[in-house]
């Protein structure tokens, strides 16, 4: 088991390394994004350009630049941005994390609860029109382009109906939890709902199919045979075991979202999270920030994969030998 974990951890590190190298190479292979001219300023003299290039080390061989950047990022921890000169990268990421965590935790809570309700309801209503109806609603949720949905939500809550129904909706942006739970939740309510719509349907259908399958399992039949009520069977027995299947799915999604996969939601709602930071750094072609964000994001994606793999390996020893 430990050997397996060690091997997977090593592979994960390798993946992170490969990603950082790739990002670095792609960046420097792209014309027009040489940061020197942008740092030097409009119509800078060629001497100033050379000076800036030298002081930032852009004239060094590319592998030296890579090494220096990694050193500043991981060892000195003082890597600074190319665009917001003097602005350190690590504090920027650290500041963005609570925003993303707030968004993802809240949304996850909503979508899991919604999925549970929808999944159980659909299972209970098998054979009636309600079952497919719930599933279709779920499919619609998955099929909406999230940034479009966000913009439409903003249109309605911030503009069209802002004077009447939605007068209570605060302006866009994030308010830290330290300012009070109420304002924090209010600012995040619509981002939560928008993000939750995307996931609730999928979780509901996975849950439903697992539950339907489990209905034929021995332990459920046994429970029924004991004369336990159908609702109780559904909740206590079927749902409980079916939840396991959701957990691995949840692990992967959650890891990706914490890593910044909620980029579009954050951009549309003006939340300064990791996704927005990534987006802004991409817009600015700010390599240090891009690298930090990408490594941060990949770390969570890889970590989530790693944990899920380990869980499977723990549950099913055969996997270890594959």
């Amino acid at each position: 088991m430990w050997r397996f974990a060690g091997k997977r951890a090593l592979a994960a590190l390798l993946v992170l390394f490969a990603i950082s190298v790739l990002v670095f190479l792609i960046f420097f292979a792209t014309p027009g994004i040489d940061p020197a001219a942008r740092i030097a300023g409009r119509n800078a003299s060629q001497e100033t350009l050379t000076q800036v290039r030298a002081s930032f080390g852009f004239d060094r061989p590319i592998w030296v630049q890579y090494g220096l950047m990694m050193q500043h990022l991981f060892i000195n921890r003082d890597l600074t941005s190319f665009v917001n000169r003097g602005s350190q990268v690590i504090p920027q990421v650290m500041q963005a994390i609570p925003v993303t965590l707030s968004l993802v935790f809240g949304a996850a809570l909503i979508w899991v609860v919604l999925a549970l309700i929808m999944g159980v309801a659909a299972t209970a209503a098998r054979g009636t029109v309600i079952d497919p109806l719930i599933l279709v609603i779920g499919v619609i949720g998955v099929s909406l382009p999230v940034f479009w949905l966000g913009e439409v939500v903003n249109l309605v809550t911030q503009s069209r109906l802002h004077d009447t129904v939605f007068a209570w909706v605060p302006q866009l942006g994030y308010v830290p939890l330290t300012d009070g739970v109420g304002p924090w939740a209010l600012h995040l309510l619509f981002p939560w709902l928008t993000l939750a719509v995307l996931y609730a349907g999928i979780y509901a259908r996975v849950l439903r199919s697992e539950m339907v399958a489990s209905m034929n399992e021995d332990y459920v039949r046994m429970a029924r045979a004991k004369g336990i009520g159908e609702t109780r069977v559904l909740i206590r027995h079927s749902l409980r075991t079916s939840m396991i299947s959701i957990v691995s799915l949840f692990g992967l999604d959650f890891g990706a979202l914490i890593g910044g996969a909620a980029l579009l939601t954050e951009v549309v709602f003006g939340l300064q999270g990791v996704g927005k930071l990534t987006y802004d750094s991409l817009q600015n072609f700010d390599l240090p920030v891009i690298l930090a964000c990408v490594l941060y994001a990949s770390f969570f994606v890889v970590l989530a994969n790693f944990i899920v793999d380990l869980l499977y390996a723990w549950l099913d020893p055969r996997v270890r030998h594959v």
Partner: protein
Amino acid sequence: MRLHRIATVGVSLLAVGALAACSSGSSPSPSGSSGAAASSASAVPSGSASVGNDSDVRPYDPAHAGGTLTLLAKGAAGTLDPKVNYTLQFWQLYQGTYDGLTAFKHVDGEGSFTVVPDLAESIPDTTNGGKTYVFKLRQGIKFSDGADLTTDDVVSSFQRIFKVSSPTAGSFYNGIVGADACIKAPETCTLEGGVVGDKTAGTVTINLTAPDPEFLYKLSVPHAAINPKSAPTKDAGNTPIPTTGAYMFKSYDPNTALVMVRNPNFKEWSRAAQPAGYPDEIDYKFGLTVEAEVTAVENNQANWLYDPPPADRLAEIGSKYASQVHVNQLTAFWYLPLNVNLAPFDNLKARQAVNWAIDRNAIVKLYGGANLAQPVCTILPPGFPGYEANCQYTNPAGDTWQGADLEKAKQLVTESGTAGQEVTVIVADDEVNKAVGEYVQSVLNQIGYKAKVKAISGNIQFTYIQNSNNKVQISVTQWYQDYPAASDFLNVLLGCASFTPGSDSSINMSGFCDKKIQAQMDDALKTEQTSFDEANKKWAAVDKAMMEQSPMVPVMTPKLIDFISKDTGNYQFSKQFYMLVDQLWVK
């Protein structure tokens, strides 16, 4: 100016060289908004201290002091270091925080192009044939951290320009004695013999290698601000440097906010150079979308937004909130550089065809309508020194642009033999630029080319189109300037020296270099030393000669919208650094 852009774009302030001061005394009055009377406030004849009259300086009204002013912007503008930052967004704030030996007057309107003494007691006469300035420092000024201002601070500040590789180090301050060595080896920069302080007399002597009538302007921009000698010799980044002005920076985080508070050690010494401000605190918040910013100002949740309001909100703020909107003419223009070294625009007729074909009114419409921009046909904006109404590409014919002539354009394309060639228009990917790009592409198709348009991130478009290696045929870009000198347009944008093949910093995007026209420009520059009026006539001839060669398509000159909340008062617009932030009333 353009959106939240950092560093290169967005810098609409001084570019290289040529802040042509008029030693003849005639005023290079910049184009006034809606023909405002050109106040003939002296625009700094070199050497002779001329403060002009200060009737345009508004007296301080203590009744309005206090409160918190809230400003909004989509993004921050990078480093807070005044010697490194080169963006309009923060230069606007440096007005009330940092001081140079001299300053542009903090007033509304034309007077704002006038240079006045700031940390120096007066503007000295030059000696040594125009090469030596001796400034006497005002006594009793303290930095916000409590340290006294001394001549040592001034000397170290000039060294610091080179030590931090200030963007303009090689273009503005390279005329100081010893600057050459400093550019080559910034770490050991001393400016020996260039900037010399005399602590007992309280004077600073600056020696130049050659007379520079524009030098006082260069001393008045933030890159020449006086910082304490303890300031770091590298980019200070997000750490505020102590100030001398009315305000100081309390905290700065580029992702959330910049906070300015009153400088406890500030006592007003010249209302024209560094007036006491009104709000007790200025909070500049970052990160909202522009739509949300507009809504916040409408709802009185913030006082002002930096970013231009989005197109679909213009009609609303122009009608429902008309009294809170201020529109000011900028001395700037939008243009399409045509690469004269690449097919098809290496052909004169092909270039002229594009000038004939582009409907300026259509582009004005895409920008937000006739009240937000004005079609142009010359390189120099209307009302600008050197501007003479003249339009070679208009139908019906006239001195100013009247209309496009597609038939003529088609005919020229056919004659040039370039019909059917592929042309790619490179534009920045924000809404307005993209719209202009699509329109230009559509026109190019109509006159016989196979045109494509390519939108790339605005942050790299500006450097991308400059580099001749990228083989850009035609693009959409802007040139903003804030001081009245024809050479800043003509010589900078189309001079031989501005074209460096293969460099990302090659502002002459057309790659245009005409020996004859260059000689004309050199002549005009020389004439400026004796007579500005005469020089301007020569510049007008240069403009005309250039437009005959058609290396670019001047499109329109834009206006700037400032939208303030209903409880905000005392709006003043400096043509140099735009709205005077700290003079706003929130009470």
